[in-house]
């Protein structure tokens, strides 16, 4: 398959490699759908698909933020703790102030997430703690904060207004409202990465932090921004989480970061930063949710779900490494051909001829 790339121009080779990933995901998704359609009787029902869409939705909202962080060669492990804490705070506020507009509750959740994400950014940029350690620490701290805030309490579905629960239940145009949220966030995220200066800067920083600094890009500020966006979207994810799983307590969304990071990584975002698209991440999230759903319908044990998540990451990263190496070989060959052609065009120096 790489051999066919040889006739292409270099930029076409690079574009083909990205498409390869997305095509690969679509094929895997197709295979999974066919497999479960045959093996799991209820898989091909509208209700089941809507379930999958609801699961995917929250993953996508948070994964868009995570993508921005990973693009800058960082990682945010604390997203699930932010989702949990903002889910409780916004749900608790709605329960105690039932008349509040949903927008206000959403803003509270997003505000909580923004602050927590900003703190992550400061730890990484100002305190210079490696992101994996800084956000591991805040994963624990933010979760601890949840226990403090809830004080052992939980918000229950009956305390929440119906219009809030409707966010998960209603299905305008056949698609759950949650999925419409995710759709909007994915479009907005794509637009930011493709059409704004800071989106471009994220890629530049992740590809080559030193060259980015030399080019006058405010590297530290951009990384803080990425973490802050990730926190804000985790906050929004928390708000949506509370409408989907309205019994919110201190352990809400525990381990959710695993789903998010799996979606990002198998969606083709390079774990060393610098490349990846929101479209790929959405495909990654859909694939993960579809397979999880299929496993549930087949009544497979929790082991297989966890195993799949882990294995998917290993497979995706291995494929990435292979494709990157092949791509670089192809580019090198192209360059060698160009140079050889140029040498053939110019007469060789007499003493260079053997």
């Amino acid at each position, binding site marked *: 398959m790489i051999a066919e790339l040889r006739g292409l*121009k*270099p*930029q076409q080779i*690079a574009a083909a490699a990205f498409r390869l990933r997305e095509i690969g995901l679509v094929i895997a998704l197709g295979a999974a759908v066919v497999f479960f359609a045959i093996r799991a009787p209820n898989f091909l029902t509208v209700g089941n698909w809507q379930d999958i869409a609801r699961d995917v939705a929250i993953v996508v909202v948070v994964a868009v933020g995570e993508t921005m962080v990973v693009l800058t060669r960082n990682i945010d492990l604390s997203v699930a703790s932010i989702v949990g804490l903002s889910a409780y705070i916004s749900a608790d506020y709605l329960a105690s102030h039932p008349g509040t507009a949903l927008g206000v509750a959403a803003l509270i959740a997003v505000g909580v997430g923004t602050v927590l994400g900003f703190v992550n950014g400061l730890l990484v940029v100002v305190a210079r703690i490696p992101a994996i350690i800084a956000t591991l620490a805040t994963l624990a701290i933010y979760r601890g904060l949840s226990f403090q805030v809830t004080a052992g309490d939980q918000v229950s579905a009956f305390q929440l207004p119906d219009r809030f629960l409707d966010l998960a239940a209603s299905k305008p145009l056949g698609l759950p409202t949650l999925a419409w949220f995710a759709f909007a966030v994915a479009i907005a995220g794509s637009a930011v990465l*493709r*059409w*704004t*200066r*800071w*989106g*471009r*800067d994220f*890629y*530049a920083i992740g*590809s*080559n932090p*030193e*060259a*980015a*600094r*030399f*080019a*006058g*890009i*405010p590297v530290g500020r951009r990384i803080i921004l990425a973490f802050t966006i990730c926190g804000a979207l985790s906050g929004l994810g928390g708000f949506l989480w509370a409408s989907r799983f309205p019994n919110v307590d201190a352990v809400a969304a525990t381990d959710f970061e695993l789903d998010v990071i799996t979606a990002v990584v198998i969606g083709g975002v390079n774990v060393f930063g*610098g*490349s990846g698209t929101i479209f790929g991440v959405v495909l990654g999230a859909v694939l993960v949710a579809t397979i999880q759903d299929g496993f549930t319908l087949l009544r497979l044990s929790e082991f297989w779900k966890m195993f799949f998540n882990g294995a998917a990451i290993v497979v995706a990263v291995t494929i990435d490494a292979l494709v990157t190496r092949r791509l*670089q070989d192809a*580019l090198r060959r*192209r*360059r060698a051909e*160009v*140079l050889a052609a140029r*040498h053939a065009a110019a007469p060789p120096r007499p003493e260079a001829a053997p």
Partner: protein
Amino acid sequence: MAVDDDNRVRRTPSPPAPLVELHGVSRSYGGVRAVDGVSFSVRPGTVHALVGENGAGKSTLVKILTGIVQLDEGELVIDGESRRVGDAQTAHRLGIVAMYQEPTVFQDLTVAENVFAGRHIRTRLGTVDWRAMRRETARILGELGVEIDPDTPVRGLGVADRQLLEITKALSSSARLLIMDEPTAALSSHEVENLFATIRRLRDRGVAVLYISHRLEEVGELADIVTILRDGRHIETRAANELSQGEIIRLMVGRSLDQLFPKEDVEVGDVVFKAEGLSRGGLFADVSFELHRGEIVALAGFVGSGRTEVARAIFGVDPLDEGQLWIEGRPFRPRSPRRALRRGLAYLPEDRIHQGLIQPMSISRNASMAVLPGLTPGGILRPWRETALARRFMEQLRIKASSPSQIVQSLSGGNQQKVVLSKWLAAEPRVLLLDEPTHGVDVGTKADVHREISRLAAQGLTILLISSELPEVLGMSDRILVMREGRLVAELSRADATQERVIAAAAGVAAA
């Protein structure tokens, strides 16, 4: 001029058979002949100096001898037998040991562990023999007259101590040919004395030492034989006492200036940039100079003399310890490249791969990188503007590419360098710092870059040109500042400058 020391007088009249002979050794990198038909031999029990300008082929030769790169043509004869030194292990087995300019150490291991890295002494039980390792390390350090505890972690050592560690490493193995690349660069005079004593002791024991240094006074003091390389070719091998320093310099530089550079004569304007007393601990000290509008000033000197470090500090990459800067009369404190760019400075870094380009991005994205805020009011990208910018520079600098969307990774080195130049020119700086702008690029690209630099200066841009290529320095610049060991040691006008004068200043010897 070379002083005969008594060690040399004792030498026997009939020299022993050569340890290593090179016959027509050549090595090319992408069409450029780094080493071109070099032949000479190294005999046991001699200190053999290898001198030449930056890029003369010394490092490549060392890499060939130590098996790191392979020769394309020619033959290596070791102990009278033709040998293929295919890798570092083979070289090591043959007794060829090199210590490099840049110490290669394991930061978190102790001095003794570093000395014996990869070849730990074992006890009879097969466990690591710490006592023997410490003892041996201490012995060598004592011989060098250095007081370092073998148990110190390397992280705690300064630059000079690391250099000594590297020497210790080389001495701890049973070397028959010891290659030293600028071993004294970071040493104090006391440490240099001890090192020289050790080298002489090794020589008297029959070890051959291939000694590479820009410090010609050291060469005169230490070497028995001198080999001079220029542009990858072997120029001369002679007994050190037959060569004066002036003669060595003449042989090093004898490069013709006919492939000249089209620097136009421009009326030089007011002072645009002024630096006073710039210092950064251990790298450079008390550097002061002025640059005028439309002027090209070269910053010459050997690699490691502090030129790049000065430029990096001015551009705000590294902090300055002391010193003041003015741009067009207003004081400027460099704190980040971003601020420097805003004040009209631009810096084309030496390392194009790591500092100049985002390899997987397109030409237009790279070219627009430093000016993106200006092209994107409100933060929204306008790809067509970036494309237009890239097209303009592709034409102006003759970048060979299929379109502005081609990714730079797929371009040749010369075209990549032109993209880096585009990025900085797009910023429309008032002062442009160029660090080795034509390093490793082909002749055509070089001419394009020179033409562009000259044209920009004619339009009033001020350029500080760091270059290791003397013809470029002499051809392009109105004025030449020469650095040696972190200090500005000479300033030459275009009329006064000759290759010999520049090299003499850079090497720290009286003008030839």
